[in-house]
């Protein structure tokens, strides 16, 4: 019998994949609420079927379809993602274990995130984009029976590890390398092919090239 207490924020393996506990509701049979780090889908299970993992330096994993390696050898800079692995929040701060936040400003003592939490430099690990060659992939508990291709999220993201992942219906893009103003909306998506209004058709990758296309806004986002 496993007598392990699951806590909010912990990294755990569930069905062999890396998840984060985002809530524990005692008294319920399925008391552990998980979020899969790879694609941020939600799952629910019980404490017996998860296995804890403590993330440490030089671990690499996929978070929201992008690959990161945990680093501790340099201070974070504005725009970096950080994993708060050693939280010591002040009275008025609002963050907890293993939260992933974006750095907004950096000073000597710590960083201030886009959620306006003040986090000292010893409280976090930097999430450097890409999988460092000597890193320790932690996406799966047992890598043996996972196909290599699967490890890097269908291979596609290796090309573009830090770019935005995908467009969605209704996104408005502006063409940047054009003499006159071209603004189009994504009207259909078929696999990797994106159909834009006005009969334009191009690949996902091409649309993500920020030299050619610039995302404007999505009128359906509220």
């Amino acid at each position, binding site marked *: 019998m496993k007598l392990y207490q699951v806590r909010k924020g912990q990294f755990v393996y569930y069905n062999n994949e890396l998840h984060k506990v985002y809530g524990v509701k005692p008294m319920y049979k399925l008391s552990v609420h998980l979020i899969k780090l790879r694609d941020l889908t939600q799952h629910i299970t019980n404490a017996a079927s998860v296995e804890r993992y403590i993330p440490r330096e030089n671990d690499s994993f996929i978070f929201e379809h992008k690959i990161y390696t945990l680093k501790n050898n340099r201070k974070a800079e504005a725009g970096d993602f950080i994993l708060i692995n050693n939280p010591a929040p002040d*009275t008025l701060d609002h963050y907890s274990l293993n939260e992933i936040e974006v750095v907004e400003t950096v000073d000597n003592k710590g960083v*201030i995130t886009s959620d*306006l939490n*003040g986090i000292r430099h010893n409280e976090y690990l930097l999430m450097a984009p890409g999988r460092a060659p000597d890193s320790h992939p932690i996406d799966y508990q047992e890598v043996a029976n996972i196909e290599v291709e699967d490890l890097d999220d269908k291979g596609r993201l290796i090309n573009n590890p830090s770019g935005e992942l995908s467009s969605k219906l209704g996104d408005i893009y502006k063409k940047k390398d054009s003499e006159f103003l071209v603004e189009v909306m994504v009207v259909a998506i078929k696999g990797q092919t994106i159909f834009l209004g006005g009969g334009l058709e191009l690949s996902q990758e091409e649309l993500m090239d920020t030299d050619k296309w610039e995302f404007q806004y999505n009128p359906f986002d509220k």
Partner: protein
Amino acid sequence: MDKFKQNSVFIISLLLTLIFIIWGVFFTENLTKLTNSVYKSSIDYLGWVYLGATLFFVVFSIYLLFSKYGDIRLGRKTDKPDFTTGSWLSMLFGAGMGIGIVYWSVAEPVTHYTAPPYGKAYTVDAANTAMKYTFFHWGLDPWAIYTVIGLALAFFQYNKRLPAAISSAFHPILGDRIYGPIGKTIDILSIFATVFGIATSLGLGAMQVTAGMHAIFRIPNTLVIQLVVIVVATFLFIISINTGLEKGIKHLSNAAIILSVAIMLLILFVGPTLTVIKVFFNTTGLYISDFLHMSLRLNPFGEGKWIASWTLFYWAWWIAWAPFVGMFIARVSKGRTVREFVIGVLIVPTLGTCLWMSVFGGSALELVQKPGNRDLAKNIAENVNLSIFTFFDYLPLSSLLSILGFAVVAIYYITVADTATFVLGMLSEGGTLNPSNKIKMTWGVIQSALAAVLLFAGGLNVLQTASIAAALPFAIIMVVMCFSLLRGLKNEVEVQRGNKRNVQHL
């Protein structure tokens, strides 16, 4: 020199406070004399400033509630509130009132009953007037002060991405001069007011904790014990700063709020329930219909002592307390809209305090109005520190209530002191969200020392006078802040409108 420039706000405000403390320790009589003369002149010459400013804040907050700025979200458009509405409201309530509400809830109505602002004492009319003024002092006005400052801080911090300092609220007027001498002066004044506001609260807290120990454990209720309480509490929160027990503080402050509500409900049920309900309705009516009269009452041809020692003291105390509470409220309100914010900070807590005062004040007045209890009323009014425990003695389950009451006061004391060090650290380091532990500890020691000095110099009266004096410059700063906020909000509406569509197809 560079280092001085970086830390000038901290160093100057620290020096000012230290001068005051040294003065208090070595020239106690001189200090008492001076605070008294400040007190007198503040009644004679400057009372109207406090009254006018505070009424203006109420009008301004209500205007914001109905204005077109109501839909502006504090933070990014996609930001969601960090806390559920229930825990948000209870945190606001705890931060805004804290120790004071326990300290005064019995003492104030009973004191007014024995010495009303007008009319004859010890009558039914005096009881109604007493409740009316208690509602007035704890109702819309303090919460309007917090609304103004909290909203300004939150707006400039979250929407304009400026540092978490009071000077940031002046960006629309001063521009980048908020980082220069003018901005620093504003920050120094806000720290000065905050230190005094907190010291007043800690002083009251120490008196209350000592009184609680006297009531429960029969420990003598003397100045020495009060000072010991301050020293012990200072040790406790300095340990908590250094060992990362901050999380525990958070749980403690939640516990204090739950315990307060439990006490209120307990008294509501074991006390005179029907009277309390009647008092709540009747006083709400009186409060609304006499609001303007009370707000502007100055008694020009008579003596203004009552107004000075109650209304003006409260207004000054709330204003001195405002940078601290405003900082706290701003910190927990990210992701709320302006309208939600005003409802949550102005309307709901006002109802909460009125209910609280009805329960405590109503039951206490019912008790002292009984024939033969006139001495009890006098006793409560004369021993304000002990008032709440004296009152508990006359209720069923009195020892349980006393212990709960003592726990609430003690917890509020620690949590306020702890949060205050954090806020003072932020304010004195240019609004950083990572104040250093050394600066936090310095403020921790300073605020305790100041509370001790004020108690030593003469207790409650000196506490009151000191906060009246320290809050005056800050009251004027806050009036200007309203206009600055209005300008900022106007600009935000334009920016948000512009964002929707900024490309023109020709």
